[in-house]
């Protein structure tokens, strides 16, 4: 069950009409290491997690990432909403506008559509949490690229917030991984692996 709350997690008031920046921001909407990938990755990996703590963490970070999808969408929406078709075309968003109008659509900054292949889930808590930690680092790097591309304070503020969240999530996933190592070292290891051919 999920409940929508009719507000953003962080305020977004973008007055800039930097359409090229809107195009670059699509990387964090429908890109490989974007917020949609993050949310769906954690929410689908939670089912095979072995402990209450890891089930909780993946549910909660996966939910927070949905709020980040909304922040990125809001930034792009506010930049493009008053732009003319000609302006969009000049900024390299002509194809995007032709296909999607001013809807938000899950493509990356180059127009490549989002695919489930960006996400892996192998049913192994160590492998999955390692992927999650790598994903947070990749998203952090992309936010640093985006921040380096603009001087607009209205755009930088939410990007800095999202950048900081990647760092916190990385830390929490690292703690969860240590917890899983401790758990696997306990007697539960053989219970969990009993249907595996090696055991």
């Amino acid at each position, binding site marked *: 069950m999920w409940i929508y709350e009719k507000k953003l997690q962080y305020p977004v008031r973008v007055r800039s009409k930097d359409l090229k920046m809107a195009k670059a921001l699509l990387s964090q909407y429908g890109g490989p290491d974007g917020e949609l990938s993050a949310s769906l990755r954690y929410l689908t990996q939670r089912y095979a997690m072995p402990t209450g703590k890891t089930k909780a963490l993946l549910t909660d970070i996966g939910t927070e990432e949905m709020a980040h999808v909304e922040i990125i969408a809001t930034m792009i929406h*506010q930049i493009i909403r008053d732009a003319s078709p000609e302006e969009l075309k000049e900024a390299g968003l002509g194809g995007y506008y032709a296909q999607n109008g001013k809807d938000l659509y899950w493509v990356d900054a180059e127009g490549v559509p989002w695919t489930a292949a960006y996400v892996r889930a192998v049913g192994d808590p160590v492998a999955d949490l390692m992927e999650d930690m790598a994903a947070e680092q990749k998203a952090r790097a992309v936010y640093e690229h985006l921040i380096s591309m603009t001087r607009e304070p209205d755009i930088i503020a939410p990007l800095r917030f999202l950048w900081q969240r990647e760092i916190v999530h990385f830390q929490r996933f690292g703690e969860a991984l240590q917890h899983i190592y401790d758990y696997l070292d306990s007697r539960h290891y053989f219970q969990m692996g009993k249907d595996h051919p090696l055991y």
Partner: protein
Amino acid sequence: MKDSRDKRSREELIRAIQEYEFAAVELNLYLDNFPRHKDALEDYNYITKVLNQLKAEYEKGFGPLKNFGEDMSDYPWQWVDEPWPWDYGY
């Protein structure tokens, strides 16, 4: 005049909610890993209490933040009221 005053207090309230909710989310994720950390739990419960008060105050003035049976509505059904977050930016 009334409009600008309402708008300001709406923004102030949402901003306060966002600040307290930020602390709640941080403590929530931390507690997922360290559920026996008593200080963090006390902080979470305190922050949650204040956050609920702020949300109640917001909803009294500006309508429900949540639907699906979470918050009640005045007549007519307020959930459909503009502005929505992506337009308003809060």
